[in-house]
């Protein structure tokens, strides 16, 4: 038996050098776990150059120039038959750009195991070269559900089914996804690895910095919403909370942290609804924060809100909220994969605007409720430890 390490290539639609959004962080943790399992691992991300600055890109990544993307956009939309998202267009573009296509296929040739994070990049790969390799399908969501356009749904379902056929097994985040894939192929092997948390150290510098910022903004109490610049996150906020901020007193605010801050600021500035001024006044933005600052913002918050009703964002924020031990108000959609936690006292679930904002109001008058679950079960370490045996077996089978 050879002692040579097996080579594993992960392919996704983003870089993971400096992981920020949920998808990046999940991929990053999976990569670390593969390394721990003894594989030699590399990651290739394919994305638009304007989406990630140079310091965030990996050396192997396939970076598509904006010019090429926009020059070909209409034709690519014509090919797929609907106005498609970047993660659908970019793989199609790679097939048509020989140099990039060769780079991808040649790289794949050097690996034994190919792990696709989400099904999109599977479109770009020459299927023949995958024939003698172990293919793993890393799923984040039931992707077809996240598209409105009927043709888009059909298209995404087709890619998903194709990859499912090639994939030896699927790694999913939640029970829901598991049932979805079993419906498509009842014999498929599936490993459920829920999204989890990497415990962050408490840093005095971060705590003081956040405290000073809060004082400067005259924020005495706040509910925290950490989210990425994903349009459905903004739409969810508007649908569930919107202008219903009249219950906040002068020193109470909603704090939005993460890249959603940028998106919200732009969207509200563009809004013709004069009530947007209410959000502009009662929502404070904390743009990009490092891990310690974010942890400090969580620690000093009155509670955490997860007003998500649709979208493809990972529900990693849910794991982080639960791990923080803070009081939480969330939608049931935000708790996909964490259903067992919905019953605990510090978690309030509301799927309509009135109930949600009522719970928010109550949070300001409530002390932090005791946490009756084992927080360690929410860590990546726990998530992987439950599944690594099976994962190793399936890869080596």
């Amino acid at each position, binding site marked *: 038996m050879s002692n040579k390490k097996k080579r594993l290539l992960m392919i996704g639609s983003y870089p993971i050098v400096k992981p920020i959004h949920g998808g990046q962080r999940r991929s990053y943790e999976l990569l670390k776990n593969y390394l721990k399992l003894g594989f030699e691992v590399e990651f290739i991300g394919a994305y638009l150059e304007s989406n990630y600055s140079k310091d965030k890109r990996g050396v192997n990544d396939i970076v598509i120039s904006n010019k090429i993307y926009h020059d070909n956009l209409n034709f690519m939309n014509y090919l797929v038959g609907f106005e498609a998202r970047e993660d659908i267009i970019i793989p199609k573009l790679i097939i048509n750009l020989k140099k990039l296509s060769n780079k991808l296929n040649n790289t794949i040739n050097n690996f034994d195991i190919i792990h696709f994070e989400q099904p999109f990049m599977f479109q770009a790969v020459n299927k023949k070269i995958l024939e003698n390799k172990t293919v793993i399908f890393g799923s984040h969501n039931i992707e077809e559900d996240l598209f409105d356009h009927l043709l888009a749904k059909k298209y995404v379902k087709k890619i998903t089914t194709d990859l499912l056929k090639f994939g030896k097994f699927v790694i999913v985040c939640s029970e829901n996804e598991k049932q979805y894939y079993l419906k498509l192929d009842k014999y498929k092997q599936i490993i459920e690895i829920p999204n989890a948390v990497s415990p962050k150290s408490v840093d005095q510098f971060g705590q003081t910095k956040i405290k000073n910022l809060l004082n400067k903004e005259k924020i005495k109490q706040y509910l925290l919403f950490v989210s990425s610049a994903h349009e459905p996150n903004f739409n969810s906020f508007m649908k569930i909370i919107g202008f*219903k*901020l*009249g219950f906040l007193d002068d020193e109470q605010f909603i704090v939005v942290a993460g890249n959603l801050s940028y998106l919200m600021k732009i969207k509200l500035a563009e809004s013709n*609804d*004069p*009530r947007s001024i209410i959000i502009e006044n009662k929502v404070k933005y904390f743009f990009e924060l490092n891990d310690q600052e974010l942890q400090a913002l969580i620690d000093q918050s009155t509670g955490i809100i997860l007003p998500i009703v649709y979208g493809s964002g990972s529900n990693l924020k849910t794991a982080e909220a639960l791990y923080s031990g803070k009081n939480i108000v969330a939608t049931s959609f935000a708790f996909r994969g964490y259903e067992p936690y919905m019953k605990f006292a510090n978690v309030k679930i509301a799927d309509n605007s009135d109930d949600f*904002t009522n719970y928010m109001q109550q949070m300001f008058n409530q002390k932090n409720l005791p946490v009756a679950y084992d927080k360690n079960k929410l860590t990546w370490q726990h998530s992987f430890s439950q599944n690594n045996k099976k994962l190793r077996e399936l890869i080596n089978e």
Partner: protein
Amino acid sequence: MSKVYFDITDLINWPGNLTGIQRVSFNLAIRLKDEIPDAQFVKYNKYINKIVEANLNEIDYYNNYKNKDDKYKFNHHETFKYKIIQSGVYDLGKRYLPLYLKILIVKIYKIKSFYFKKIINSLKKQSAKNTKEIIFKKNDVYLLTAANDNWNLEGVVAILKEQKKINNIKIVHIIYDLIPIQFSQFFGSNGQFSKRYTNYLFEIIKLSDQLIAISKSVKLNLLDFIKSTKLPNKPINVIRLGDEINPNQNFKFEINDTDEPFILAVGTFEVRKNYLLLYMAYKLAEQEKIKLPKLIIVGKFGWLVENLNYLIKHDYLLEDKIIIKHNVSDEELSQLYKNCLFTVYPSIYEGWGLPIAESLAYGKMCLASSTSSMPEIAGQLIEYFNPYDAAHLLKLLEQYNNEALLRKKELEIKNNYKITTWDKTAKQFYKFVVK
């Protein structure tokens, strides 16, 4: 015992003739002492950032008003600005002076007024020191009846917020409408005014102990706004605005344009008043060969109507059919009401709709838009139309261009329409205040 304070800052700062909000505020102010004798007028003094004592004599309009035998009359023919405009000097200068001279005059005026303002401000600061600051006591009542500093939250509102915390003063605020929130497109400025108003309303509802709406429609709009923003519920009472007219207006005014019968439309010439619908109805009449009487539109020149103004003035097929009058005194307006066939009010949305009430007070039939508060004024006594339906309006204009029908309607109005006096409005208002 708690004291009632009535804020007249807006009236003191208001130049010339009173319109909508200021008219209400004024009519309530001059009746304050009749209803609450120990109440106090106050104003916000921005130079010292304090609320200080004030009296009615500080209001220009009041000084003209109290000097007249006829207490309803304010003759703006006596104002300096009116005299200048009427003398023709202004028009002549505008028409015949070369551009460089016009620029020079404007520059001199600006420079002069800049230094003039500086001197005035420093004098005002000095004199403000002699004013008497209001020291609030527990549960005092503060009445806000007008547009505070153009819906600003600084100044008086900030002081009231503080006093609410310290002395739990009770604030009563009149709400005239929520139109800037419902129809921000009617206010231009890329929505900035609407945002400022929204912000003001949002904060003032939180601060107030009682809101007074000028119609049931405004009350419903307020309840919707409170619900959509999750603000705390506040008691909302409704008052009916006065619509009495001066019975002694015998002022003879030459109405050159009214030799022939005419329909009258009153209200600021601005986009929300929807004069476009009248223009469309008249165009439709022309297309269908329907003969309509002349239309006189009376209203200050407002905003977002430049194109419509151009259309009406340059449409040779409608030449002299639609006349727009911008500078009309109360007396002229009174004559126009008396001499018109009937009135038409096509406004898209209103907080109340004073021209409808005025028309009825003059005994004249009104065709009005069917939205918002407008049907509250006269119920079944008048006819309504959809403010987006020119064909329906035309049908009504044609129908009421009928002497016999108009006489019948006028008799109905005379027998059934009850004019609301300002005394009655004030009584209603102060009853809610002291409750």
